[in-house]
C-alpha cells in the first residue's frame, strides 16, 4: 500500500477528473432521456424504433465510439467532451427504456384526475406523470450512474484523464497496487453515487420512503 500513500495527490487528481467527466454525462443522460422516453411512451409508433435504437446503441463498443465521436462532432481526440458525449449516449441507451416504462406505469386514473382538475399538459407531465414514474426512472438512473462511472475508465486508453489512467500506467509498470487502487476507487465512486441517488430519491419522492419498491 506504499504506492497509495506515495501518490495521494495523483490519485486525487484522477478521481477528480473522473467525476468531472462522468457526473455531467449522467445528468445529461437524464435530461435527454426524459423527453425521448416520453415520446416513446406517448406515441406508440415511436416506441419500437426509439427503444430498439437505444438498445443497439449499447452494443457499440466504447473504444471506437470515443475515437469516432471527435471526427463527427469536431472536437480534439483527447477532449474530455468526447467521453462525456459518448457516456451520455450510453446512459440514454439504458435510461430511455426506464423512462418509457415508468410513464407507462402511471395509473390512468391519476392522469384523468389531473385532466379533470384542468391541469395543462406540461404541468400535468411535470407534477403528476414524472413524479409517479419517478421510482422506475430512479432505478434506471442508478444503473446508469454505476455503469457510467465504470465505463469512464476506458477513455484512459486514449489518454483522457480518469481513474482508468491508473490501469494503463500500472499495467505498463507492473504495479498491481496501482491497478487495484483504480478498481477500488471506481467501484467506491459508483457505489457512493448510487447511495446518493437513493437518498436524493427519498428526499424528492417522500411517498416512496415506506414502499420497499425503491430498493430494486
Amino acid at each position, binding site marked *: 500500500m506504499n504506492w497509495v500513500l506515495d501518490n495521494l495527490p495523483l490519485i486525487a487528481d484522477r478521481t477528480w477528473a473522473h467525476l468531472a467527466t462522468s457526473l455531467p454525462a449522467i445528468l445529461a443522460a437524464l435530461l435527454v432521456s426524459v423527453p425521448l422516453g416520453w415520446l416513446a411512451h406517448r406515441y406508440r409508433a415511436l416506441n419500437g424504433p426509439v427503444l430498439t435504437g437505444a438498445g443497439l446503441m449499447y452494443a457499440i463498443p466504447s*473504444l471506437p465510439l470515443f475515437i469516432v465521436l471527435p471526427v463527427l462532432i469536431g472536437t480534439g481526440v483527447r477532449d474530455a467532451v468526447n467521453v462525456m458525449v459518448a457516456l451520455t449516449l450510453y446512459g440514454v441507451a439504458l435510461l430511455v427504456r426506464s423512462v418509457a416504462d415508468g410513464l407507462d406505469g402511471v395509473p390512468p386514473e391519476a392522469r384523468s384526475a389531473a385532466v379533470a382538475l384542468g391541469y395543462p399538459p406540461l404541468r400535468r407531465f411535470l407534477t403528476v406523470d414524472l413524479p409517479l414514474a419517478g421510482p422506475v426512472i430512479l432505478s434506471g438512473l442508478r444503473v446508469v450512474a454505476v455503469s457510467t462511472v465504470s465505463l469512464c475508465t476506458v477513455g484512459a486508453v486514449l489518454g483522457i484523464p480518469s481513474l482508468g489512467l*491508473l490501469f494503463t500506467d500500472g499495467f505498463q509498470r507492473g504495479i498491481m497496487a496501482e491497478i487495484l487502487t483504480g478498481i477500488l476507487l471506481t467501484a467506491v465512486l459508483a457505489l457512493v453515487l448510487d447511495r446518493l441517488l437513493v437518498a436524493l430519491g427519498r428526499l424528492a419522492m417522500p411517498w416512496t420512503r415506506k414502499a420497499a419498491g425503491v430498493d430494486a
Partner: protein
Amino acid sequence: MNQLWEAVLWCLDPGRWTGPSGIAARSLEHLGYTLLAVLIAAAVAVPIGWWVGHTGKGRGAAVAVSGAARALPTLGVLTLAGLLLGIGLVAPMTAFVILAIPSILAAAYAGFEAVDRRVIDAARAQGYTGAQVLWWIEVPLGLPVLVGGLRSAALQVVATATLAAYVGAGGLGRYLFLGLKTQDYAMMLGSSLLVVTLALVLDGVFALAGRAAVPRGVTVARRGVTA
C-alpha cells in the same frame, strides 16, 4: 460520412475475410468469447438467482453483489488479471464473466419474483412440493425474464470483448487496436461495424429465444428488464 463509407468498403472486401486472421475467423473468435463468457456467467449466476428467487433469502446480498460487480471497471479487472495470469484467454474471460453476471443474476431472481403469487399458492394448495413449484412453475414462468437477462449480458460482452486483444487474445478487437494504433480509421470503424453487426445478430437470436421461452397459454406483460 465518407469515413463511414470507407469502413463499409473495408468490411466488404472479400480478401479480408479469409485466412487465420481474416474477418471470418476473428468474428467467430469474438462470438466464441462472448458465448463462453455468457455460458460461464450463467452457470454461476442462474442457480444462485433461482435459489434467491425461490427461497426469498439472500436477496439483499444478491442485489449488493450484482451492484458491486457492475461497478467493477472491465479494463481494470482485465489488466489486473492479465498481470496475474499472463496472456491468453483466462484473463479476458475473467473480466467478461464478471461483466455478464449482474444482468443474469438479477434476471434469474426477478423472473421468479414476477410469477404471480396466486399461481404458486394454487400449486401448493394442490400439494406441489417445493421442488415441483420450482421446476414446474417458477422456472418455466421465469424463463422469459431470464432470457432477457442473458440477452443484455450477451450484448454487453459482445461490445466489450474487443478488449481481449489488449492482453494478447483474438477477436475483432485485434482490428480495432491495430486500426487505433496506426490511425487506420477504415479498419477501426469497420471492425466496430462488425461488432455492432454481431450484436444485432445476437440480439435477434435472443429475441426469438425469448419468444420461444414463453410457455404456451401465458401472455407476458411487456415489462423490460433493465440491463
